[in-house]
């Protein structure tokens, strides 16, 4: 809500500077987000009388106007010709400034005629979008020489107030003025709500009937007869513009002006286009249609509240008027609506139709149920004044206003919540300052809640008022007593530890947004993704089922930016449909590009064994002994370089290299190794070290053994043969060389192991090992291989 300071001062004549006013209001909960001054660039523009307008000798489109101003007469060149002799117009003389120009005006020749400044359109003055012609001032009381900025109250800036939904009273100048009065102690001057009426009674002319009291407890109409087509005063138009609204006509402006002033949305009907004239408030029938002011045909439901005339709907209650009864330049008689519509109803309709207006914004937050008559009177009075119309006596109305409620507060309760002593006198002083009537009953203070305070409902609401008035700086500081032992859940602590392990394994953590595209899902043929009903981006319509796609995208992005060696991990939530859904935490990492970049190491790309290595590190660090690799998986993986990861013999994820086809689709260059595992499975298999093994006291006997085996014998099988053959004296075997090629025959490869043998109780002698090595060799022979050297 934009609150022009000049308007605010009219209601509360405080002399505080704007900055201080803004700061003090903010500290009270009227959040001033900014101070704007659209007219800081307007200076020295005065009103002048047009004496004559003649053609420009050197142009078909321009004209030359002679004007009378306080110091004499001047001539200037004008681009439009809507002004006539006798008109009062704004003149930006040489040396003056207008908001649309960066520099002050100068006298300069335009096609041979010296133009002494310019005449201004509303847009050039920052008074609205209108740029069709020069602004003609229809208010003779503003005479020649009047300074426009001062006369229109544009000297002061505008407060941009963020209104929280519990305080809709701040959606009006009056509401902010009440709080300003309370803050400054300067008494509030409410705008007058008296109205001069003619003898004819409104309720003799029209009728109002509420058939839906639940949605509209009260409806007040005022009738203004004999209005002339007119503009609202410039000062009013300037205020509407300042508040972000567009001046339209005297009638519409009057309703908007009073809405801004008092917070009560009003609607003006062309009474001659309202059948009856009689207003009926009822719910729509299912499928009923109404064309609203914006010329959109709307199909309604039985939950939408309608304002109807004797024959048909004329407005969508609290949201927007209908096209058929709209006021126009031809309107001569006006029926003004000032009604109370319940929040829920307006909210429902506005949301369903996605039709949000200044009126619906206020109604759905709650308007002042007591404010209908004053707003109607104020609006009728302004409207009659601006259009020469007459206000008929009284109102036409139906419905009742709920009596005010009383809410009580115990000062002791306020003390208990706020942590400092709130005496009864403090509470009473706070309510007095806010202008809330109260009475004391024993140790309870009871407060009468006025209609505009829709936020006060129970005791705690009053406690908040007390601390707001006294100032939040009253609140002291202490620490709560510790409620228990505290700590992290084992799940969280485990996942957190896992992050440290992955980071120390040389991977960098990423935290992308957890959405997935259809292509992401197709990558692994996931069909049980949770769709997002209203996704942020249409192409990311699902919650992710796995972390891998996000990692691969990050790899591709880094490669595109010229980062060659990339190792990333994420530990994060994934989602799948279930009963009704399943949400759990997974770990994934991906490696691509050169495995080492440096002068000291030959370059080679990351491959699946690097990923396997990370898995080994994770398993070691987290105490997972029971894991293994299973068969290759379907999916976007290299068939010869991928495997299921089994933890405790159960499938828990996969490790592998991306299939070149998938790499191309994802625009990843070269090999990319990736793994994804369920964190829960790893946690379940993780064993905390409870007892160390004794360490051997004697050194091992080491032998290098080289085997030549058929090329398709897995290294794991040879390692297994060494372990078995080694029996009791097997200690460790490290594969230190893998070789294929000449002089080996085709289809054979050589695997060389450094094997350590050890007896627990003595140093082994070399000849003790010979039979052991023979057993190993026999095992390898069973695999179709042979011991070559050892």
């Amino acid at each position, binding site marked *: 809500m934009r609150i022009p300071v000049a308007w605010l001062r009219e209601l509360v004549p405080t002399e505080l500077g704007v900055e201080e006013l803004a700061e003090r209001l*903010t*500290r009270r*909960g009227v959040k001033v987000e900014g101070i704007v001054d659209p007219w800081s660039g307007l200076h020295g523009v005065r009103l002048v009388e047009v004496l004559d307008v003649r053609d420009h000798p050197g142009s078909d489109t321009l004209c030359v106007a002679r004007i009378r101003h306080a110091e004499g007469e001047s001539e200037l060149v004008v681009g439009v010709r809507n002004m006539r002799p006798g008109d009062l117009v704004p003149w930006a003389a040489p040396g003056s400034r207008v908001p649309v120009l960066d520099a002050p005006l100068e006298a300069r020749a335009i096609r041979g005629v010296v133009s002494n400044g310019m005449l201004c359109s509303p847009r050039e003055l920052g008074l609205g979008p209108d740029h069709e012609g020069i602004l003609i001032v229809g208010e003779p009381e503003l005479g020649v020489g009047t300074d426009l900025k001062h006369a229109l109250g544009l000297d002061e800036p505008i407060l941009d107030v963020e209104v*929280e*939904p*519990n305080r809709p009273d701040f959606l009006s100048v009056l509401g902010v003025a009440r709080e300003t009065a309370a803050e400054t102690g300067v008494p509030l001057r409410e705008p007058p709500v008296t109205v001069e009426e003619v003898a004819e009674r409104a309720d003799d002319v029209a009728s109002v009937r509420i058939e839906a009291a639940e949605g509209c407890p009260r409806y007040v109409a005022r009738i203004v007869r004999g209005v002339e087509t007119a503009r609202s005063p410039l000062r009013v138009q300037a205020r509407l513009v300042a508040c972000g609204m567009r001046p339209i006509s005297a009638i519409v402006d009057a309703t908007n002006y009073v809405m801004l002033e008092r917070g009560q949305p009003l609607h003006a009907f062309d009474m001659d286009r309202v059948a009856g004239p009689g207003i009926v408030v009822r719910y729509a029938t299912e499928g009923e249609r109404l064309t609203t002011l914006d010329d959109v045909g709307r199909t309604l439901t039985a939950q939408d509240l309608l304002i109807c005339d004797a024959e048909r709907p004329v407005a969508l209650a609290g949201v927007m008027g209908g096209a058929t009864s709209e006021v126009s330049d031809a309107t001569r008689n006006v029926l003004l609506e000032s009604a109370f519509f319940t929040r829920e109803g307006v*909210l429902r309709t506005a949301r369903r139709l996605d039709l949000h207006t200044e009126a619906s914004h206020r109604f*759905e*937050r709650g308007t002042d149920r007591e404010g209908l008559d004053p707003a109607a009177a104020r609006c009728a009075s302004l409207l009659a004044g601006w259009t020469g119309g007459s206000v008929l006596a009284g109102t036409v109305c139906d419905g009742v206003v709920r009596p005010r409620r009383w809410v009580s507060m115990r000062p002791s309760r306020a003390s*208990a*919540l706020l*942590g400092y002593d709130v005496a009864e006198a403090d509470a009473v002083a706070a309510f007095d300052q806010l202008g809330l009537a109260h009475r004391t009953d024993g140790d309870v203070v009871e407060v009468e809640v006025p209609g505009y305070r829709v936020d006060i409902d*129970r005791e705690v609401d009053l406690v*908040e008022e007390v*601390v707001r008035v006294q100032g*939040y*700086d009253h*609140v*002291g500081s*202490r*620490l*709560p*007593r*510790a*409620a228990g*032992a*505290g*700590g*992290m*859940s084992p*799940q969280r602590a485990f996942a957190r530890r896992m*992050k440290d392990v*992955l*980071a*120390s394994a040389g991977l*960098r*953590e*990423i*935290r*992308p*947004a*957890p959405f997935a595209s259809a292509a992401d899902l197709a990558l692994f043929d996931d069909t049980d993704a*949770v769709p*997002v*009903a*209203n996704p*942020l981006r249409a192409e990311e319509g699902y919650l992710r089922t796995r972390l891998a796609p*996000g*990692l691969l*995208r*990050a790899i591709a*992005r*880094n490669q595109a930016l010229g*980062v060659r060696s990339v*190792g990333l991990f994420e530990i994060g939530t994934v989602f799948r*449909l279930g009963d*009704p*859904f399943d949400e759990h935490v997974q770990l994934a990492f991906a490696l691509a590009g050169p495995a080492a970049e440096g002068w*000291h*190491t030959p370059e080679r790309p990351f491959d699946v064994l690097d990923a396997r290595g990370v898995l080994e590190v994770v398993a070691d660090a987290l105490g997972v002994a029971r894991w293994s690799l299973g068969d290759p998986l379907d999916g976007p993986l290299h068939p010869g370089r991928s495997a299921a990861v089994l933890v405790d013999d159960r499938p828990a994820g996969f490790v592998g290299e991306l299939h070149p086809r998938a790499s191309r689709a994802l625009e990843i260059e070269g090999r990319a190794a990736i793994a994804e595992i369920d964190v829960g499975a790893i946690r379940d298999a993780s064993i905390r070290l409870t007892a160390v093994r004794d360490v051997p006291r004697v050194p091992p006997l080491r032998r290098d053994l080289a085997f030549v085996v058929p090329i398709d014998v897995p290294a794991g099988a040879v390692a297994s043969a060494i372990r078995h053959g080694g029996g009791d004296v097997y200690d460790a075997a490290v594969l230190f060389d893998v070789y294929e090629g000449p002089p080996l025959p085709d289809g054979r490869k050589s695997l060389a192991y450094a094997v350590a043998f050890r007896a627990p109780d003595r140093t082994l002698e070399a000849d003790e090992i010979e039979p052991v090595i023979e057993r190993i060799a026999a095992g390898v022979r069973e695999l179709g291989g042979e011991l070559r050297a050892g």
Partner: protein
Amino acid sequence: MDADAMLATFGSERDRGIALAEAATTLDELDEARTSILGRKAPFSDAQKRLGTLDADARKRVGQAANDARDALNRAFDERRAVLEAQAEDALLEHDGIDLTLPGRRPRSGSLHPLTLVEDEIVEVFLRLGFRVVDGPEIEDDWHNFQALNIPPDHPARTMKDSLYVAIPGHPELLLRTETSAAQIRTMQSQPPPVSIVAPGRVYRRETPDATHLPVFHQVECLVVDEGVTFADLKGTLEVLARALFGERRRVRLGPAYFPFVEPGAEVGVSCFVCDGVGCRVCGNGWIELLGAGMVHPQVLENCGYDSERFTGFAFGLGIERVALLKYAIPDMRMLLDGDVRFLSQFGGAA
């Protein structure tokens, strides 16, 4: 050979040997010199062998001189050997040099995401204060996310932040949580008071991302409920947090604000860590608006079956991204999502 001749030989051989040792420039030369002086066939040994020909007195005197000379020679050769060996090693090392401006052979660097670092810092503060750290589901139901938090279906606060809904047939109530506050409800439903928890987690809103907003971001929710908890407990806790995150000299300021699930509600400002509250480009007026907080609304306590007359509580929700932006002067929040190694590597290890 008489005693005098022997003495002369020992003396001259000693002097000659010391001179040879000193003159030797290589270990080979030195060995050669040693053999020539102390070898079995050298004059020294020759003379020594003849000691037996002397009488006891002379043998003792000359023998002593021979031993002294031999000791002197051994010392001279040993000393020279040490010198030559050191020289030889030095020469070897001179060829074994390496350019120390070459990059080191370092293990590959990894790093934790800045959000993890900030979350760790926040969680650490609360662990010290004896809080439990809890998690909640990201897919929530309307009741936990809204209604229990005093946001009924027709509440205008629901338009403040439009939500993301999941489309699971038969479950229109499910949405992606808009606040970690839902964890408050789940905690209170699962245990009686006293409660003191923090719940870090991801939240979702239908917002357009820009430099300071993301539609998907992280919060840490804090909830304390007990007998006698006051607004002052909230302020004290926030002071501990603000000082842990932004330095010991930080002050905390509460101002009125509205959140449906707390009352009184507060917007919490921390004195600027750049200018110490004077006013600068980071803060504007000396205060950094950091988070929303307040006393748990009695309706929320009642919704969870707590006696709102007996128990009071406070709650707040802190945006982790916002803290990260402030702490690390990150110019654009979207950098946190991108996974750009050149950004991530600044949080530990080289690119």
